[in-house]
């Protein structure tokens, strides 16, 4: 059994020697195993061995013999399944890459819109913020490179102004006006109701990224006060039931 614990590698992956043995057998048994198939099998074994608190492994069979066609077809089916998953993962990471490239290209466009003028840094950051609803670190680094402005200076601005967020914002923005007119007309009570319903405080985002809650100082529609705005829709002092309806309509 001690043998199981020794580690060895298989096409760059760490596997137990037991697994390595199996893989070697596999390779031999299948006449022309594609690299992907072997890799997948390797991955699967690796995953099984590294799962936290994995159920105890059944006693390993003595030197697995892959002889019957049934077994072979089983392995084939398994390989196909994993091949599909891998394709998906590969596609997804490609998508992520593509997305990142697109995002950075968009930043290039924004920077170009302001003719790469360093004085327009705040305007550029505002555009990026509006596009993403937050300022991803990658974006800031990219801007820093493009405009040749130290990243520290960019962070100075990004943390000073309230319009910027350095963490992702929820899909739906909820803001409660706490301007003076709304305050004297009961904004604190409305804010309390909203925080109770959403279970987040102002400045926070729900863990499922559904809602972000903020307070604003005046929306300029004081006749409706106290006001709550959900995704640009204005609601004048909604009652608890109405509020729940508004929130549940948000995906």
């Amino acid at each position, binding site marked *: 059994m001690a043998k199981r614990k020794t580690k060895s590698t298989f096409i760059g992956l760490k596997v137990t020697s037991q697994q390595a043995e199996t893989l070697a057998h596999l390779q031999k048994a299948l006449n022309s195993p594609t690299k992907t198939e072997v890799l997948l099998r390797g991955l699967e074994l690796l995953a099984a061995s590294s799962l936290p608190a994995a159920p105890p492994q059944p006693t390993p069979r003595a030197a697995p013999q892959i002889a019957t066609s049934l077994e072979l077809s089983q392995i084939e089916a398994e390989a196909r399944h994993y091949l599909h998953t891998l394709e998906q993962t590969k596609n997804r990471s490609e998508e992520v890459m593509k997305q990142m490239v697109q995002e950075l290209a968009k930043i290039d466009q924004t920077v170009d819109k302001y003719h790469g*003028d*360093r*004085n*327009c*840094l*705040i*305007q550029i*950051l*505002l555009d990026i913020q509006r596009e993403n609803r937050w300022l991803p670190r990658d974006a800031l680094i990219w801007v820093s490179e493009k405009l040749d402005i130290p990243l520290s200076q960019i962070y*100075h*601005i990004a943390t*000073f*102004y*309230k*319009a*910027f967020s350095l963490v992702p914002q929820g899909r739906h923005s909820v803001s409660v006006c*706490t*301007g*003076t*007119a*709304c*305050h*004297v*007309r009961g904004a604190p*009570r409305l804010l*309390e*109701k909203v925080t*109770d319903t959403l279970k987040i405080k102002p400045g926070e985002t729900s863990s499922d990224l559904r809602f972000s809650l903020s307070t*604003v*100082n*005046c*929306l*300029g*529609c*004081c*006749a*409706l*006060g106290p*006001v709550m705005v959900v995704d640009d829709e*204005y609601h*004048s002092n909604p009652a*608890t039931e109405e509020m729940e309806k508004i929130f549940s309509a948000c995906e």
Partner: protein
Amino acid sequence: MPRLKSATDLEARRQEILARRDPKRPCVTICSGTGCHAYGSEKVAQAFAAEIGKNGLKEKVDIRRTGCHGYCERGTIVVIFPQEICYLRVKPEDVPEIIETTLVKGEVVERLLYEGEDAQKIIHEGDIPFYKHQSRIVFGPNRFIDPKSIDDYIARGGYAALAKVLSGMTPEAVLAEVKKANLRGRGGGGFPAGTKWETTRNAPGEPKYVIVNADEGDPGAYMDRSLLEGNPHSVLEGLTIGAYAIGASQGFVYVRQEYPLAVENLNAALEQARDYGLLGKNILGSGFDFDVMVHRGAGAFVSGESSALMTAIEGRVGEPRPKYIRTAISGIWGKPSNLNNVETWATVPLIIDKGADWFSGIGTKGSKGTKIFSLVGKVNNTGLVEVAMGMTLREIIYDIGGGIPGGKKFKAVQTGGPSGGVIPESLINTPVDFDELNKVGSMMGSGGMIVMDEDNCMVDVARYFLNFLSEESCGQCVPCREGIYQMLKILNRICAGQGRSGDIELLEEIAEVVRDASLCALGATAPNPVLSTIKYFRDEYQAHVEERRCPAGVCKELISYYIDPKKCQACLLCLRNCPVEAISGGKNLVHVIDQDKCTKCGACLEVCPTRFGAVVKLSGVPVPEAVSAGTEVKRKTRGEK
């Protein structure tokens, strides 16, 4: 669109626009300012477009979406020209009736008109009491103009003042006119605009800059926004005239990014003005070059301060600097820069057009012209009002604002935003005038006017402003950063019922240091809300500190909710609505609040039917012993009070 090459060209264009327009042709104007937008004016406009199309009136009726009309309380506002019929609180479902009755039959939809106290219906906008007492010289044109149409502005004589300046006035003459008019800055300080312009003009260094301050950060104030959204060309025209007088070739508009519609309309206006040759090179063939850039602010109250704003335009963190040298001499990139508020700039074309004498004929000795206020809070007619300087607060609040809603008693009015103070009822006859308001411990500020009634706690109001300021203080200087924080701490303590004797005096002491030693106006004026509330409502502070009582019943830690067993009718409403299940009782059983569980959210008071009035707020007195569980209610019999 061919560029206008001279003042004559502009006038010819104006005549051409007017000739194209039939003044008798019906026009439906829909207020699309922010307030009405929040009421859903978008849907009303769509309904009009659809219904007019359906009725085959497309060729006969115009639709115009205008800027803010000011009467936000009754939005969405629809005015139908040429009769000038004003419909209030219009909903999309009212549209077919308006078209059928007014546009087709030429009659009036009575139910949508303003109804006066004696149930008398008022048809014309100008006759409604809210408008009748105003002098809407700057803000008035909003309701006739589609902010996205430069032709609308030109048709009403827009850019004529600029043409007048460029075709026959020297910069010195313009300067002299503005000085003679004694136009004072509408952004808060009330500094004479002409003097400031002259300083920048005479300061060494080129180029010079002119800037519009549209970083309207005061909570509860939105007049700059409505002007910029509703009539952007008036601001641009004023700015261009100022640039000519000062000798600037580049202008900036610093506008809050929270005002997307203002940014949109402003950018559209800039494009049109450039197309018409009213901005850019060789404006109206005069040889004068000028262009404007829009800079969106990213949300920092302190960036509205002149030196901070200029630093922000440079693309840096908008923090103020000590102003041993004024920004008029050394502003953006160390160059002479003249900064004025939106409303100040929008007033300039009027002064040029109608003359300094006309302008200085309005107002008081020290404060000329009109001022726009945002009248909000506990007042019947919330909205934007423009009045001649010198009108008293009472006239504004009662004659225009229609008094306090719900039969409540007026307590105080707060002017000047977080830098201003509260003015009590005893001083309600104070006229709006830069100097008079300063005298009573408040200030004109940018024009916020927040009305408060007996249900508002003055200590809470002071705490509210200090909380705002402590968040907005940039933290560079100690008096502001620490002073405001310490004052807030004391106020929090007082509101929480833990005030100590000597706290009020300590507040006054800290306030003095903060006022005298802060770097910029944010800190220097921060104590105003505290000092003015202490000055006029000291007894309220004392009640909090000495009796642990909040007379207005606002400060949570000092109040308790109690159900009067004699009045409770066991309707179960409060019991069902209590979010923490602190109310016990049942059918026919007196409801009782468990004081330990109660979070003082006030839901029970809100839902208790007024005819029972069983739930009461107590402050400063012990909560009476609860009745034993299972006590049956004493039913009211008919006629019994």
